[in-house]
Structure formats: C-alpha cells, structure tokens
C-alpha cells in the first residue's frame, strides 16, 4: 500500500468531526474510542446525530450529558451491570434530544446497505412493533418474491454516517487497522464517509502482508485518521488488553444521576487528560 498513512494527535482527530455530523460508534464491548470522546467533548462538539451500532453505554451517556447530541439513533443505551444510563433517560424524558428507537439488526442492516451502496435493505421480523410507527423513515412493503398471499416485509433506508469513530488494538505504519473478529467495525468503516480510529499501538510491518493478520484488518483506504491512545477505551474494558475500571464506572453511575453530579464528574474527567 502507499505511504500516506494519516496519523494525527487526538485533538486533530477530534477536530475532524464537524458539528451536526452523523457519527457512528460501536457498543461498549466492541471498542468505543473513549479518549477521543473526551477530546470531542473538550472541543465543544454540538448537534451530533449519534448512531449507536447497535447500542451504546457510557459513551452515549457522556456525549448526551455534555450537550453534544441532537439526535440519538440506537437500539438501547445502558451502563450494563452498572445500571441505567442516567443522562440518556433524563434527556429523553425532558425532550432535550430527538430519539430514533431501533432494533439491533435494523441498525446493522442500514449500515450494510450503505456498505453495499444500495438505498435500502429488507429485514424480517419487527412487524407489529411500535418502533415502526415512530420511524417515519422506515417502510413496510410487499415482498416482490412472495409465492402466495400477503407477505409484508420491513425495508430500512441505508445508514451512511459522515464519520465512524472507534478504538482498535493496533494500526500499522501504512494506516491499516487490525480489528480482529469485531466485524461491525469493518462494516462501519465501509459504510461511513470518513473513519477515525484510535489505537492502543502503532506497529511495524504490514498488516496486509500475511493472511493471518489481514483476515482481521481494515485496509488503509477506508481510514481517514489514526491517533495513538494507550488505554483509549478506558474506563471501559478492552478485549484481552484490560478490564473495565469498575470503581470509575460505579462512580459515574452514581454521580450522573443528577445534573450537578454529572457536571462534577465531567469536569474531573476532562481534567484527567490535561492540556
């Protein structure tokens, strides 16, 4: 591959998410870019259309609490064993954000449609759910291949994020990014116009040179910027590399229950990375 690897600092990377962007992020166990998320909050990002692939937790709750989010498209937001996501629930109740409730495979299907450059993708199930009534952007049509009788099927428009943002174990110096079996990250990169990645480390060698590593690698051609961020998913767990910081997450879950508590947590959190 060519030698135009797009390496940058966390701040330069965060600057590539414009106000109002449609931003796709992965669920907590897949690898949200938490250090980059703090950089986004620090720079005062506004008006995001946040697409959770297909759910989120701490990342969405922080971005909502910090006022970065205008529209939230997700199948769920939860802090998992640490309980409900308090800023999410508060913002929805207050009508402070627009919510596009989805179901997990619908978000995957919308991204896969964008990956394939097709305007829509059908999905079985979901019929009869109130989700459909509240998603004017979804349609129900007749299956054109039905053998007999009525066969309605849900069709979902492509979800084409302006930006996909996630954390990965490593990148090489050519800009290829290794994600292993967490394949939704590849779908996100294929579907999005720009893909921003933070990594635990930048390694020598070419991740595409051998089939073993290539099987879990997103080629550089889909990657717009890479920033090195050790422990970049902290305080969330990151696969085999590190576990969740349970003290920090419990602290968040407790403080974020109130708006002043959240403000206090956020101030402390943003100070952590220093300037």
């Amino acid at each position, binding site marked *: 591959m060519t030698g135009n690897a797009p390496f940058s600092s966390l701040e330069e990377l965060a600057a590539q998410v414009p106000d109002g962007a449609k931003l796709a992020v992965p669920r907590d166990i897949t690898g949200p870019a938490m250090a980059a998320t703090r950089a986004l909050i620090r720079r005062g990002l506004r008006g995001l259309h946040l697409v959770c692939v297909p759910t989120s937790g701490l990342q969405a709750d922080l971005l909502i609490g910090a006022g970065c989010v205008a529209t939230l498209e997700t*199948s769920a937001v939860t802090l998992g064993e640490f309980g409900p996501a308090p800023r999410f629930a508060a913002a929805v109740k207050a009508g402070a954000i627009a919510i596009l*409730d989805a179901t997990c495979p619908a978000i*995957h299907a919308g991204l896969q449609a964008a990956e394939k450059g097709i305007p829509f993708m059908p999905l079985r199930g979901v019929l009869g759910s*109130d989700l459909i009534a509240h998603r004017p952007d979804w349609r129900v049509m007749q299956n054109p291949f039905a053998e007999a009788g009525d066969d309605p099927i849900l069709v979902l428009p492509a979800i084409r994020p302006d930006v996909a943002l996630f954390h990965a174990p490593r990148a090489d110096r050519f800009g290829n990014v290794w994600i292993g079996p967490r394949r939704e990250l590849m779908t996100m990169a294929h579907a999005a116009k720009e893909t921003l990645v933070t990594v635990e480390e930048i390694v020598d060698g070419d991740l595409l040179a051998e089939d073993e590593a290539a099987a879990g690698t997103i080629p550089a051609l889909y990657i717009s910027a890479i920033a090195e961020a050790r422990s970049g998913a902290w305080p969330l767990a990151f696969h085999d590399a590190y576990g969740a910081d349970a003290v920090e997450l419990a602290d968040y879950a407790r403080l974020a229950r109130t708006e002043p508590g959240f403000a206090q947590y956020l101030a402390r959190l943003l100070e952590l990375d220093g300037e």
Partner: protein
Amino acid sequence: MDCRREELLIAAIARLLEGCRNVAVGMLSPIPGTAAMLARARDPRVRVLGILSGNSFTNGGVELFDLAAQGRLDAFFLGGGQIDGRGNLNLVGTGDYPRSEVRWPGSFGSAFLYALVPRVILFREEHSRRVLVPQVDFISAPGPAAEDSRRRGGPHALLTDLALFTFDRERRRFCLESVHPGHGLDEVIASTGFDFDRLETVPETPTPDAETLALIRGPVAREIARTYPRFAAKLFPDAVAAS
C-alpha cells in the same frame, strides 16, 4: 431436597431447552446462561452461543441475528419492563412515547428475535402487576398475531420467581403450568396484571433432583464462573474456590 431459588429457575429453564441444539444467551443473564450450560452438560450437542468467553461468533454483532434469520437458533431469552397477556413486550418505557415517565434502555434485538426464534423463553424474576400488565405502554416486540402464520418465533414460556406459564398461540393467552414451591395460586393471581388460563389444579414446579443439583453445583458452576464471576461466587462459593 433443599434447593435455592436460582437453582429451581435454572432447572426449570433447562427443561424448557430440552431438544434444542443452538441456544443463545445475553451477557447479563446469569440464570439463563447457567441453565444453558446445564443443558449442555446433559447433552454435549447443545451449543451455547453469545456468551463472551464462548467467543463463538466471528462475523461481528450481526451474526447472532443472521443466525436466527437462517433458522439455526433454537432458543433465546427475553425479558422486558412490561409483559402483557397477549405476549407483547415493552423494553422502552412507561407513559407516552417518546417522553417516557420511566425510560428503559431500549428494544435491543427483541423486535426481531421474538419473531424469528422458535423457543423464546420470557424470563423476568420480578412477578408483579407492575411488570405483568394488562397492556404494555409500548410494544417493543409484539406477541403473535392471529393472522401471522409465517411467524416462527416465540413466545414459548414465561418464567418468574413465582410461576411458570406457557403461551397458547391459538388463544393468544398465557397458561399457568406450575407454581413454584412456597408460593400459591392466589399469590400468582394477585401479582399478575393480566388474565391467564390454567388447569383446575395447578401443579407445583418440580425441584431439581439430586443428580441435576450435583451437575449445577459442580461442573456447571465451575464453567459459568468464567463468564459470570460475581454470580458464581455468590451462589456457588465452594465450586468457585475449588476451581
């Protein structure tokens, strides 16, 4: 035989899984997860999917849903903040959508899996009129409609801390199968917000036999300690310490 509440539920779910090959379990579901492991301990052809340490998926988060749509997934578990007598599930919130009074996380994959997985087991420990309501405020995942002949998905059963129900597709109603030891029919009726069918005399949910309990407390406990360490440490401290 002396058995704990969790062990009764685990054994009851394992019975509901009889004959299944591929069972998927969520990461925050230790009782269904343990039950699936028990089913596997009894029949090694059972595959337990979707538990993190099992690592059985290699096509990302979409694979569980594709697997279900391919018809390869035999059983799955769903809960819900509200469940009504038609089998509708609400995982979104109470009151007027979207500005819910109480907002729950969201529908996850329920709207899809409930329609496609043949044996969806509804599992909700809290058995109360708050949870088991006459009509859900928001349908995340609908119970089967009368005309919906193409649907192959659940519900198969509803298990709570008090009782076990099955679901009758024709009548679109739950039917009380059994009441757990230490609880009575009156308590079940008083705690359930919807009407349901039942036999004249409702049996007691069987407690696990000695062999089953030994399996749960021995090899199964040691196995689930890797996936649900807190749960295992609390329930099976001896097995966890020995492993």
